């Protein structure tokens, strides 16, 4: 032990001692290996490519170059801790951990360190309450919004009433998958549909029992909160039991090309929520023309790539905002927090950036870190191999969600003795 630790000490202290350069340091906690690599890779590609584009085209943000520090987590919380600690020392501005487990783990830590956490469309839903979660931002939409948007859409599909309908949720048996259950229960009470939740254990390779149960019960709609291999297997099994694909809808993490492609033509008609729709954004052409892409370029323009790009764009807008507020180009992490809190996204600005319609319009405030709470419904066209948007942005039902957010965040505040800000 002794020798080893000493050698390790000597070796790594030599390497870590790189001085913090005067750049905008954005860590990218990516996972390009492990069971969820297929989702982690395009997100990270999109995230990095957009910053690269800014560096190359605009010379950075406000004249400051962006330096991406990538760190591989393999979707493992412990490796995530190592990544967090090693990048923190370099002056990291904002974290985008892309994992519910890591988000919960980082919320208290990052708050204590004064570094903002931007969990776009995942993580802890009640962090929407910015008065209590001062350093956490989960705009533009969160899981509870997602559940409500899905129900709202289904209500329209069933002619305005869900009375007596059966809706089943198939969820990844983890914190992420469990998030929408309280909301869906509340919505079931409000709209009078019968709600049932069916768990699928990680990794979700084997779902025969769950789908036989669905086949027996014939729910009118199935919602899915899945990630990784669970998505592909669920879609395949749904096709196997001849479940009507158009009644099967996933959350935004269950609606990428990689989820539907393995099932081939059988996945035609599968629906999913999305908050970063597929379009021919002019900015994608610029990225392709830029060369020096992060990945092999095959992911450019895919659902999760776009989402990574959106995350990078929102971050860069917040950085610009922070530079404007504080009048310095070399901002610090707490200053970026102010920038994120003052962020507002308008369609005009999006068009200017060459990605009109990639995000709903919203503005962040001190009380509301959750943004618009809007998403679209998209449908998979297996022949054209493309996701088609079915609806415009749908808003969530804040009557149901607001009290849930309030009670959950206040429970957190009480448990951790946090004084509400604002």
């Amino acid at each position: 032990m002794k020798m080893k630790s000493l050698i390790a000490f000597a070796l790594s202290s030599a390497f870590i001692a790189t001085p913090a350069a005067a750049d905008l340091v954005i860590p990218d906690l990516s996972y390009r290996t492990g069971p969820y690599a297929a989702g982690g890779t395009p997100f990270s590609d999109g995230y990095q490519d957009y910053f690269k584009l800014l560096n190359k085209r605009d010379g950075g943000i406000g004249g400051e170059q962006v330096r991406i520090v990538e760190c591989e987590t393999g979707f493992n919380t412990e490796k995530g801790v190592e990544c967090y600690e090693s990048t923190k020392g370099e002056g990291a501005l904002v974290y985008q951990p892309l994992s519910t487990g890591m988000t919960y783990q980082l919320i208290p830590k990052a708050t204590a360190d004064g570094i903002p956490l931007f969990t776009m469309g995942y993580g802890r839903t009640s962090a929407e309450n910015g008065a209590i979660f001062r350093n956490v931002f989960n705009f533009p939409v969160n899981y509870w919004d997602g559940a409500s948007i899905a129900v709202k859409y289904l209500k329209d599909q069933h002619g305005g009433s869900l009375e007596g309908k059966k809706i089943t949720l198939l969820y990844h048996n983890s914190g992420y998958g469990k998030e929408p259950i309280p909301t869906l229960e509340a919505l079931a009470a409000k709209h009078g549909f019968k709600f049932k939740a069916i768990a699928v254990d990680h990794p979700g390779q084997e779902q025969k029992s769950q789908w036989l149960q669905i086949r027996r019960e014939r729910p009118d709609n199935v919602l899915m909160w899945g990630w990784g291999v669970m998505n592909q297997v669920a879609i395949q099994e749904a096709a196997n039991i001849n479940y009507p694909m158009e009644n099967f809808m996933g959350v935004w993490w269950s609606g990428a090309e990689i989820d539907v492609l393995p099932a081939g033509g059988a996945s035609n008609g599968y629906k999913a929520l999305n908050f970063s729709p597929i379009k021919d954004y002019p900015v994608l052409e610029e990225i392709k023309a830029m060369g020096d892409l992060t990945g092999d370029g095959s992911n450019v323009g895919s659902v999760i790539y776009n989402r990574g790009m959106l995350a990078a764009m929102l971050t860069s807008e917040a950085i610009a905002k922070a530079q404007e507020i504080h009048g310095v180009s070399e901002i610090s992490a707490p200053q970026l927090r102010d920038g994120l809190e003052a962020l507002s996204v308008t369609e005009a600005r999006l068009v200017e950036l060459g990605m009109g319609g990639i995000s709903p319009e919203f503005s962040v405030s001190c009380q509301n870190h959750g943004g618009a709470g809007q998403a679209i419904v998209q449908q998979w066209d297996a022949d054209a191999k493309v996701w088609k948007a079915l609806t415009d942005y749908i808003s969530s039902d804040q009557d149901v969600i607001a009290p849930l957010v309030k009670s959950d965040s206040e429970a957190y505040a009480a448990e951790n003795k946090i004084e509400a800000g604002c």
Partner: protein
Amino acid sequence: MSADFLYGIEVIINGLMAGVLYALVALGFVLIFKASGIFNFAQGVMALFSALTLVGIMEGQVPFAHLINAIFGTSIHHFGWTVPAVLAIILTIGVMVIFAWMVQKFLFRHLVGQPHIILFMATIGLAYFLEGVGDLMWGSSIKRLELGLPQGGSLAIENLTSGLGGDDFYGFFIDKLDIVATIVAILLVILLVAFSQFTKYGRAMRAVADDHQAALSVGISLNFIWVLVWSLAGFVALVAGVMWGAKSGVQFSLSLIALKALPVLMLGGFTSIPGAIVGGLIIGVGEKLFEYLVGPMVGGATENWFAYVLALVFLIFRPQGLLGERIIERV
């Protein structure tokens, strides 16, 4: 007949089919354990690796493309050709044979006579190694396996049986892929049994399994037999990888199917091929039936642990597994 009862039968049928798939993975373990006493932790990764190799060859992917590109700054990904499935399968089997030979030559030859736990640990190292090599060679994205295997429920069976129950019964659901898997598994077992019973090398293999030294003394080459056994296990892994990969695409999670095989092994006995089959069927039916009957009461997702508990209950009565060799202990 009431719908509930019929659905129970449906669950049992599907359990049997799932059990066959588990048995397929377990077979690979048994082959190696029987012949060399090695509990091969890398079996799951071998399934992943062989399936990755199959898809990679079929699609004409350049092996180690990412590594080559990173070192030389090139950007190559595909050779630009595709290989027909049959040829690709043969090539993949070739790769698995080379792998078996290398494992023997560079690893287990140096570990002859070591205790079980050391051999087990060596396979852990092998699992890490192979997983890394698989990722490096073929990349970690999801790949679609296009062998033209049938997918989806069998409508014929569904229509035929839908009249059995009342309006609440929709006929038996049986996945075509599962039917194919069952047939393949049965063929594989027949093939393996025929091989071990009626061929020269099969007999040699059984001799080695019975007693290494006695086998050596009658002139059987242990090295050759072990390469043979690892190749067979590689082939079984390929079949398992294809059957599971057809469902979910070929990706990292395939290596986790080994966990499904452990209770099967435990129940059936580590040393018995029929045990693996019977164990697979019992586990498949048991876990599905438990999930159907008890699952809804306790919140579901019980399959993972129930398989182990079921095997544990069996073991308490038969500590060597259902069909395992009797453990004779002498002081």
